[in-house]
């Protein structure tokens, strides 16, 4: 499976990764070769095989509806690059100029 340059750019956009032209080219090659290798999975007939949703036996796991003390606000904000009034600060615009 060979990836086009546009596809690589599209995936990088979906994944919010800024790539240099160099990187786009390199990844295009590398991802293509990995995906080609992965194509061998098509050899196998899996029409009757269920996907693995868990390697462990089926069971249920729930939590009771009982509250627990919250993390203190200052602990949450400790690692924040930018904060203001106990909230995380981010740029105003969602997208940059198009």
């Amino acid at each position, binding site marked *: 499976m060979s990836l086009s340059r546009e596809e690589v750019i599209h995936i990088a956009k*979906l994944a919010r990764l800024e790539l240099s032209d160099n990187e786009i080219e390199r990844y295009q090659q590398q991802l293509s070769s990995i995906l080609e290798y992965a194509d061998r999975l098509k050899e196998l007939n899996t029409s009757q095989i269920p996907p693995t949703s868990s390697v462990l036996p089926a069971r249920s796991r729930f939590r*009771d*509806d009982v509250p627990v003390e919250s993390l203190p*606000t200052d602990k949450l904000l400790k690692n924040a690059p930018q904060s203001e009034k106990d*909230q995380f600060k*981010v*740029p105003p615009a969602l997208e940059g100029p198009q």
Partner: protein
Amino acid sequence: MTEYEAIIGLETHIQLNTTTKIFCSCKADSWFDPPNTNICPVCTGLPGALPTLNKAVVEKAVLLAKAMHANLLPLSYFARKNYFYPDLPKGYQISQYDKPIAVGGFLDMPMNPANGQSYIRHITIDNMHLEEDAGKTRNEPGRRLIDFNRCGVPLIEMVTGPDLRSADEAAQYLIRLRQLLRWLGISEADMEKAHLRCDANVSIRPKGASHLNPKTEIKNVNSIDAVKEAIGKEIERQTNEMEAGHKIETWTLEWDEDAGVLRKMRSKETEADYRYFREPDLLAIRMTDEWRNAILEGFPELPLERRARFIEDYGLPEYDAEILTGERSLSDYFETTVKTYKGDPKRVSNWIMNDILRMVNEAGKPAYELKLTPAFLAEIIQLVDSGTINTSTGKNLLGKVETSGRAPSKIVEEEGLAKVSDDSAIREVCAKIMAASPNETASYKAGKVTLIGWFVGQVMKEMRGKADPQIARKIMEEMLSQ
């Protein structure tokens, strides 16, 4: 000019009223809390945190599924819905995709248009699925501030088919949904507090056609009125466009409440690719028959069912039945009173609609919290029926019982509130009043017969309301005409 019909589908997000969030033990309700005080590593997506499912969330979903006649899947899975947004801490929302908690279902909604025939609108439900809410963004000049208190609050998303045909119907659906959610006790369903959120999909087509035209999506409508107004405006716009021969584009529109207009939102170049896959950190929800039956034990009669039953079995008018099934506590109160009273349900209905409803609203508490129990109300009505007290005494008794919590008959006895029908006692008082009011007596005799009301009022006052007013009037008239 072609006649068009509107095709409307609604996507609602329902905030469940569990104590804790869906995937962590933070409180679910933080409406009044300062920002970022109701958070933990899980709901803020800190590295290394893992979700754990709140059992109560599933239980409430089962109640809604039953109420909407939906099919609970024996195995349902959570899925990651992947997208980036500042208020979405993990960069994905844990939701459900291919196997949601329930599929299918319907609501048969009675419609009573002001000018026209009553009818039932059959609304199909596509699916309902569980998901977590995101955080809140506050826009400030030059920046956005993010608060994660709301992150992780449990939501049920319920999607209807394109079955609604007017803005009125859409509003009515939300009203019925809100009523149902409160009836089942699974959500406060207050749209202003975002407990119930709604997006509308709107298209139009020539009446009688069977195809579906491109639809627009309306967002940011925060009240039932706004939903109605926005949909109405969009139907109008689409009609004008179609009449002018233009095609409808699949825009996403945002409702501007202040301006009362719909604005086109930034168009997304392509459909978002959410890359759903099964959530590996959570197990499948196994809905066994056993568990479902345990949850549904004691499942109540639903408001629309009860409304029909009140009309059918109690012979109540639709107006009464609607009010008496508006809210569950009052509805149960009414029915218990009827069963205790054993008389004409309409009589009970009147007392409830006029007096109990007001009492409950003023006190701001549900009917089951009243000290004036259904049994006590039934007693009061019986006391009035039997002539022991008159109606106005009965009305006063309501307050007295509520304040003291004591049985009506006891209060009547202690305060001597029993109606005086005894002729002689009334005669005595009438004579007294006549003697003390020579001017009024003269006026009456001169022909101002409307003064009878005043006279009776005086007698009632003198007898502290205990006289039977009909008898007092008869006697007073008799004596005045002598």
